[in-house]
């Protein structure tokens, strides 16, 4: 009997929305193997979040909750030890979660401690041991078969829908093992403060590239972004040029996003950028260069300067949305 353990991250008294696609991936593995889904909630005082997860159920056999002050703030060192302990205690055959920056940090460390393989950034479940994952900046899809116990995985958040809630699942407390964080200290987390939705969660994203010319010009894109109720993004060329903060970068080495609408403005469309947004449902490209590669990918292309289009587009969008 397979036991699929999905690790969740919490936000206040709930689960982080970014953790949800990992549950869906776990459900699919449990289904493919005829096994059980188990959820694991970690934190200093995660009881409230565990209750919220249990109420939604998600088809899980149980929601395991492990509390320890060493688990907050997140460190890969303590989390990996906690995950290893939970995997051993439950006899998990699979261990994974969404490919967030935290789980990309902690799960490979945990896998090494168990001498186990890990399939990173899965976008589809082919069977209990075979997963599809993009390689080479999304230019190829590899079906990777992994052998070992347990099998670790991270699921790319943009490729799995949020799971449907189900019947409530029981909460099971699991005592935390001795957690040694090896002397590391998290000194601060400089969060990007924004009234806008997070890039990885936004329904609409407006991204600007080097062709915007300066950081000040991004104010025009911000107006359009806000008219659409979306998030602002950028290409690596724009973040490297210091026009906007680095954490707005969309691409192979930045955020992977898949909103319903992605508007690329003055972005030429380097492979590395495309790798981060090609999963978007509808892609609009606005670029003055008709030869820009971004047009190959766009559902709607407009060859024009941003200066001549963005203010008018903002106006029309505002009018439409207030109508």
């Amino acid at each position, binding site marked *: 009997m397979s036991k699929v353990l999905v690790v969740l991250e919490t936000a206040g008294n709930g689960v982080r929305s970014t953790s949800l696609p990992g549950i869906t991936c776990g459900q699919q593995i449990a289904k493919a193997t005829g096994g059980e889904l188990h959820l694991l909630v970690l934190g200093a005082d995660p009881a409230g979040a565990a209750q919220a997860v249990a109420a939604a159920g998600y088809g899980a056999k149980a929601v395991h909750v492990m509390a320890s002050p060493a688990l907050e703030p997140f*460190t*890969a*060192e303590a989390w*990996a030890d906690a995950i290893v302990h939970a995997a051993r205690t439950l006899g998990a055959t699979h261990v994974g979660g969404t490919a967030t*920056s935290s789980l*990309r*940090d902690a799960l*490979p*460390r*945990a*896998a*090494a*401690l168990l001498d186990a*393989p*890990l399939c*990173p*950034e899965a976008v589809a479940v*082919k069977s209990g041991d075979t997963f599809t994952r*993009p*390689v080479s*900046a999304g*230019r*190829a*899809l*590899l079906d*990777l*078969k992994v*052998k*070992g116990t347990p099998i670790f995985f991270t699921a790319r958040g943009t490729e799995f829908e949020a799971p449907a809630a189900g019947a409530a699942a029981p909460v099971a407390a699991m005592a935390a093992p001795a957690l040694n*964080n*090896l*002397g*590391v*200290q998290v*000194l*601060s*987390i*400089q*969060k990007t403060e924004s009234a806008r939705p*997070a890039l990885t969660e936004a329904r*609409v994203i407006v991204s600007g590239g080097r062709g915007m010319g300066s950081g000040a010009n991004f104010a025009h894109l911000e107006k359009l972004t806000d008219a*659409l109720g979306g998030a602002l993004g950028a290409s*690596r060329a724009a973040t*490297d040029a210091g026009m906007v903060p*680095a*954490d707005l970068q969309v691409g192979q*080495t930045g955020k992977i996003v898949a909103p319903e609408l992605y508007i690329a403005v003055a972005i030429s469309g380097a492979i590395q950028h495309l790798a981060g947004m090609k999963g978007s*449902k*509808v892609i*609009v490209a606005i670029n003055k260069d008709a030869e820009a590669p971004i*047009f190959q*990918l766009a*559902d*709607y*292309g*407009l060859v024009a300067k941003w200066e001549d289009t963005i203010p008018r*587009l903002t106006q*029309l*969008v505002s009018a*439409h949305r207030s109508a």
Partner: protein
Amino acid sequence: MKILVTVKRIPDPDEGLKFTGGGLDYSSHKRVPNAFDEYAVETALRLAEVVGGKDRLAEVVVLSICPQGQRQHVTQFLAMGADRGIVVDAEEDSLDTIAVSKAIAAVFKKEGADLLIAGKLSQDLEGNQVAQRVAGLLGVPQACFAANLAWDRAGKSLTVGREVDDGVEVKKIPLPAVVSVDLRIVLPKSVQNGATSPDHAYNEGPRLASLRGITMAKRKKVDVFTLAALGVASGGSEQDVAVAAPPARKAGQMVGSVEELVEKLTKEAKVI
């Protein structure tokens, strides 16, 4: 202080992919160093050198797993300024991630290194797991996705700014430790070693090898180990079952005006 830097050669990511018989054919691809590994070497060099002085604060050793006759990338990094090289003689594509991680951990121990610096991922397979695994195998702290770092030599620790989903996390880790580096580690002032002036602005990106560096590289020592000598088996936990090009997107359409675009987005795509 001894810094070990892992470097990998990969098929040139700027060349197109060739799909053949359910696999990828890289046989005609030029092999180039993985860009993140160039950043890792640059990071190590900035930690080790004192700009404007002659002191070296650390020895920089580059480590690669590759057939020993195909180590041009190692020579390239020696020319860039690394002090010596280590090659684990094996066909890298034949090893699984577990074996690669074990081999690196074994070399780290054998060398008695204080710090491993790795690129956060290789651009071909995008695994993003080797640094984390090596830290786990060694039982030492890790700071992954580093955008900046400062070395406290007296306190034998590093303070690392890490790129996380919702911003930058600042993590202090005692040495020995493992760091994986992200793109912004090569910005002009991202690496501080407490000896080079904090005002010194490096050129952005990894440095180019100087002519002198290229000449010197040939004289630098490169040790060659086998997997067996490191006590590591090649492993068979990963198997490529199939490779395919991603499905093409439906062909798009060009519009002639902002008005037409809004019309399409509201009536046809219905996304606003």
